[in-house]
């Protein structure tokens, strides 16, 4: 079946350090992945996406890595800032359609000063 899971429910990092949030998925038919950031009381905010024909994609201070062999996805945040504190969700769907997103359970990132 389809499932998306996260290794760490809470990640605490110091300001300025790099953060790595991990996600595992089980359905090999998944070919499009998104990372969302959710702050308290708000909706999921799109961060970055990656398609299955790519291994890596970079944005502003964020990098997503995809390892299809082990069905693993990660989000790297460089120079983590207090404003990065939030819950991060990975989600996947099948590319090429407007089909539903399946979300992981979320990782809470806590940035300490």
């Amino acid at each position: 079946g389809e499932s998306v899971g996260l290794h760490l429910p809470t990640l605490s990092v110091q300001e300025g350090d790099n953060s790595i949030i991990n996600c595992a998925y089980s359905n090999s038919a998944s070919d499009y992945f998104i990372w969302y950031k959710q702050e308290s009381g708000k909706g999921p905010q799109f961060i970055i996406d990656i398609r299955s024909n790519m291994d890596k994609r970079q944005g502003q201070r964020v990098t997503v890595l995809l390892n299809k062999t082990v069905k693993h996805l990660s989000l790297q945040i460089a120079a983590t800032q207090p404003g990065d504190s939030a819950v991060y969700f990975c989600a996947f769907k099948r590319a090429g359609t407007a089909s539903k997103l399946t979300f992981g359970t979320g990782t809470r990132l806590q940035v300490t000063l």
Partner: protein
Amino acid sequence: EPEVTQTPSHQVTQMGQEVILRCVPISNHLYFYWYRQILGQKVEFLVSFYNNEISEKSEIFDDQFSVERPDGSNFTLKIRSTKLEDSAMYFCARTGTSGAYEQYFGPGTRLTVT
């Protein structure tokens, strides 16, 4: 990417009452979605809506739920007879302007059923 707006931001209702949650897209898109998030849990898909028809729905989306675009603009989610377990955040989402892949979420409506 401009997101969608949702009203109300918070709705309190008694068990058994009907509620209508509204989503207003900023621009004209074809694909819309409703998701919900029970407090402390992950986001769950409810239904997708394409070209004024339901294209996919989850097991959660039973006969108590319905969606429509009554005036061609607003996108609504109706729960006919609310239950305590319907208490959650309800998010409307739309696809991006560059294609049908990424989805952008609204701020959500917090539904509290008492």
